[in-house]
């Protein structure tokens, strides 16, 4: 029987397999940031261990970094200590670090692909659930906790029980105005926040094939919001074109060898998935969330649902609580929901294509009175590229704030946060209670919807303008 893409990559990394034990899986790339690593480095120190492969490890500062006044020390002493701890750990253990202010700094899931370190057929881990992003290249990439970070630092491996496989096939072409973000929000609403649990999702079909690498990264990024261990897309010409010439991509004869190998990384025709979901792209429209988990989403043309309309008592109760937290009334058209803040950025939607989409909508328009809009590039390189293209001028001229790179208001560990009761339209990945600041209310949207919403002050698609 044939094998799936996920199985091919997994099998190629099994160091040791023994009956009744987890497989020992080799890790090709370990990405590190300041939040989930300090206790892991401490663990190494206490046990007198070293980093086995610093040459397969790279660190960046992203979660805590302010997006203004980069040259000043971080004002919050606790954040500052965490960032300084990462610097000391990287220096002590010989790990390459891109600190704040460095031209290579950025969100961990933006810099890996940008450097060409994320490659098809590799295994990638990071102490961050959105590591699934890297699966867009046909890498097997998943988030881990701090104990596992320490394990990878010490051994460059992880004990794993092989996940099951799930195919999400999106047939047909995405209609105009429907983006990768709308697609993944619709997928999560369809399969639920636990629908992918224990599985690696492979995204397939015409609509996926026609996405750019940025769009594919947006889709794979939110696999975790569908509960999946990882998301993957088979590498193809789009992937190779993105990688060619990047600093850590193979070159010369190695490039040819790499492309030959990468081309073999596709699911065999006779392979069988443990679970399959089929979606018709033609039915999709701009999609937004109304609740407090990423599965609570609807087409923008819809209305806030009545909790009584859910048959499942667990979903009903969850919807009741979500409406109360979100301050919403059943039956309200989603387009009538007014927002205070619009956030563009994060590892989901902080790439150049996202910023182009935002600038495309904002060009010649103004952010509505009373609305604050933050645009935070995913990395310093993305910021520079956007500035070279003049996107920053369009964004600033509209009244939005053009910021430095980092995770920013996606999780509000830096000064960018919502105040209690404040409502946002956000291109990030989580609408959890308090995610963007205690008491904050989040609607997840695409970059295009974010920009149109900023213009009207209510949830809006560009086509409505």
């Amino acid at each position, binding site marked *: 029987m044939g094998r799936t893409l996920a199985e091919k990559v997994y099998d190629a990394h099994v160091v040791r397999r023994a009956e009744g034990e987890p497989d020992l899986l080799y890790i090709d790339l370990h990405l590190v940031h300041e939040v989930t690593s300090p206790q892991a480095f401490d663990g190494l120190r206490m046990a007198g261990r070293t980093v086995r492969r610093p040459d397969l490890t790279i660190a960046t500062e992203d979660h805590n970094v302010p997006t203004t006044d980069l040259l000043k020390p971080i004002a919050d002493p606790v*954040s500052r200590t965490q960032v300084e701890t990462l610097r000391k750990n990287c220096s002590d253990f010989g790990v390459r670090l891109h600190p704040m202010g460095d031209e290579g700094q950025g969100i961990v899931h933006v810099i890996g692909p940008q450097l060409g370190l994320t490659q098809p057929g590799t295994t990638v881990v990071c102490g961050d*659930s959105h590591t699934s992003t890297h699966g867009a290249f046909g890498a097997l990439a998943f988030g881990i906790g701090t104990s596992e970070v320490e394990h990878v630092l010490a051994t460059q491996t992880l004990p794993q029980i092989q996940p099951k496989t799930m195919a999400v096939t999106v047939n047909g072409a995405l209609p105009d105005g429907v983006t990768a973000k709308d697609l993944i929000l619709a997928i999560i609403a369809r399969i639920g926040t636990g629908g992918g649990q224990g599985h690696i999702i492979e995204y397939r079909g015409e609509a996926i094939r026609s996405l750019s690498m940025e769009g594919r990264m947006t889709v794979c990024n939110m696999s975790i919001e569908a509960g999946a261990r990882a998301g993957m897309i088979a590498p193809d010409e789009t992937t190779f074109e993105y990688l060619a010439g990047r600093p850590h991509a193979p070159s010369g004869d190695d490039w040819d060898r790499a492309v030959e190998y990468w081309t073999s990384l596709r699911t065999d025709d006779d392979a069988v998935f443990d679970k399959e979901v089929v979606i018709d792209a033609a039915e999709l429209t701009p999609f937004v969330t109304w609740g407090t988990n990423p599965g609570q989403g609807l087409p923008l043309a819809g209305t806030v649902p009545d909790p009584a309309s859910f048959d499942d008592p667990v979903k009903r109760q969850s919807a009741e609580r979500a409406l109360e937290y979100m301050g919403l009334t059943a039956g309200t058209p989603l387009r009538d929901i007014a927002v205070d803040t619009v956030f563009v950025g994060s590892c989901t939607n902080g790439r150049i294509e996202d910023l182009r989409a935002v600038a495309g909508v904002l060009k010649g328009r103004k952010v509505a009175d009373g609305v604050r809009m933050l645009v935070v590039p995913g990395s310093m390189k993305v910021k520079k590229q956007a500035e070279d293209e003049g996107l920053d001028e369009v964004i600033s001229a509209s009244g939005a704030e053009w910021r430095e790179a980092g995770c920013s208001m996606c999780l509000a560990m830096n000064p960018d946060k919502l105040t209690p009761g404040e409502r946002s339209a956000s291109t990030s990945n989580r609408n959890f209670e308090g995610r963007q600041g205690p008491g904050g209310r989040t609607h997840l949207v695409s970059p295009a919807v974010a920009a149109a919403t900023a213009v009207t002050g209510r949830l809006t698609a560009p086509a409505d303008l």
Partner: protein
Amino acid sequence: MEAFTTYTGRAVPLRRSNVDTDQIIPAVWLKQVSRTGFDKGLFSAWREDPDFVLNQPQYEGAGVLVAGPDFGTGSSREHAVWALQQYGFRVVIAPRFGDIFRNNSTKMGLLPVVLTGEQVDDLQTRVEKDPALEITVDLENREVRWDGVTAAFEIDGYTRWRLMEGLDDIGLTLRHADAITEFETTRRPWFPTTV
């Protein structure tokens, strides 16, 4: 890691689904660089509500948390596990867990137990009726017992053994250091390095 064989004690019913790790420990607590002090952050936003279940005196000192489906979804923060343990929980029972949370729990010796939605509901109802009810979570026999009910749960044999022995994964893996070195000689030479 502390070994886990059997726990007998009281339980807290948390009647919520999709309890993501941002709720278990909000991001502001993640700035610490130590492994201690996270008990204060456990459900810190929800604990501001005096009626929240953890604020009810009858559940004080309980070691089992009984929650709705999709517990521990979202962020990979292991701080969620540390917070639960440091607060005093030894076991979390739910119909379904986030994968990373479940992994993190077993690395630290917090036992995640999957029971059916009906079993969880029954357990929550009985605990609400009698908060002093004793629950036994028996890892050796893979079962939870309460009020005359016995519910079997699944856990793979290796993880069960590691939890019962309280073994650290890194030490176990390093017994295979030669296999890792051998594997490294077979890696494609053009695979990327960060240097």
